[in-house]
């Protein structure tokens, strides 16, 4: 799915017109806790969230997120928009809620890009 199709599917509005809309959206992830996002999201996903602070954009940047959809018509503060502009990550606001949006995207063929906790075993060793 490309950004244009995403905006149409969520009936959303692009908040930052300077964003890079060329990135393919390969899957989706919905969460309001940023550590949950970082723990589970795979690269090149759309992130659906109710959170509006700049850390949403930072999280998206670290996790190679292709686009952010803010649910329930939320409008972020200017700091968030500025950061999204700098990083050129599309910031989209949609009037619908999280469940509705996940459903719409899933129905349009977008896969879940949330890895299950069962996959997330810690392969880390003690520091040497």
């Amino acid at each position, binding site marked *: 799915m*490309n*950004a*244009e199709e995403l*905006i*149409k599917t969520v009936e959303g*509005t*692009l908040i930052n*017109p*300077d*964003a*890079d*809309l*060329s990135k393919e959206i390969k899957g989706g992830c919905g969460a*309001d*806790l*940023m*550590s*949950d996002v*970082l*723990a589970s999201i795979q*690269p090149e996903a759309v992130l659906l*969230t109710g*959170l509006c*602070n*700049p*850390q*949403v954009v*930072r*999280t998206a*940047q*670290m*996790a*190679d997120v292709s686009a952010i959809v803010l649910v329930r018509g939320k409008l972020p503060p200017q*700091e968030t928009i500025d950061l999204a502009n700098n*990083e050129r990550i599309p910031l989209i606001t949609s009037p619908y809620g999280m469940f509705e949006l996940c459903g719409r995207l899933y129905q349009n063929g977008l896969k879940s890009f949330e890895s299950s*906790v069962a996959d*997330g075993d*810690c*392969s*880390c*060793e*003690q*520091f*040497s």
Partner: protein
Amino acid sequence: MNATSNRSTVVLTDQQAESITRSEELAYELRISEVMTRNVRAASPEMQMKDVVEIFRKTGISGMPVTENDHLIGIISMEDIFHCLMEGDLNAYTTQYMTPNPYTVKDVDLVVEALKVFVATGVGRLPVVDTEGKLSGIITKGDITRGLLKVLQSKTQEEEMRRYRASHLFEDIESDRTSLILRYTIKQHDFVHGGAASSNIKRALLRLGASPQIARRCSIAIYEAEINLIIHTNNGGIIRVEIEPHQITIDVTDDGPGIADVEQAMKPGYSTASEEIRELGFGAGMGLANIARCVDSMKLESVLGKGTRLRMKINLESKDTLGESNPNSMEKR
């Protein structure tokens, strides 16, 4: 190229979004003198219209300024030529058919000023004058497009050059062990700038030739550590990243308050964050578990009342070496 039309459009095509909006930005950075055509041929008041027609025909131009002692007094466009031809008046002087006092722009103005005049008036070309009113060039929409494309191209090349240089940083330096150390000071409770250090580290790693996977793992781990410093510390802390060709070592230290039970802190879902912090989207209790997932080894040491030290290491395989030629740095060129 139109300065106002694309700002409010919701959906653009990929290419438009890529180039137009950035070129709009550039229209506010570039001066008209940087994109205009110089050494423009100008007509004089003593010239006859038939001479002008001849010049148009020979050179393929479709507009020509008229100057007197280098000062602009008018412009002749195709429309003026048609007017003259319909009158059958080719022996007339240029001053009779030129458009006097045309719209002009100043060479020191920003390109966006020229765009505004193009949009407002619908003219195809604008004479450019210097501060003394002397003709210094002419600008068309085509000049602007070419000028912007040139800058866009050189900016892309600049980033490529940076990447290329950084990805070979260590090659010419001889030592028993070469490394690059990055240090960042993180303030407590600074949520607005939180993540800036991780963001800079990610960019640095990519320039040094890191694969997207390595850059992602590393920046997620550092971001979680950075957020921990912001949420939990009394006085913020320091992130120190040591980059060597075959490993990245990260050392995050603070001077308190320290963790009461390190083992419990490591458990997924365990969090001591306040309700206020949770409302900001943090405190899921996944931070340290995330870090463990992203790095190859980690060690968390803490003394209650004294401070905490988190050390992490990511090992790089030979295809992922940093600051030395590798398949990633070659690919990005």
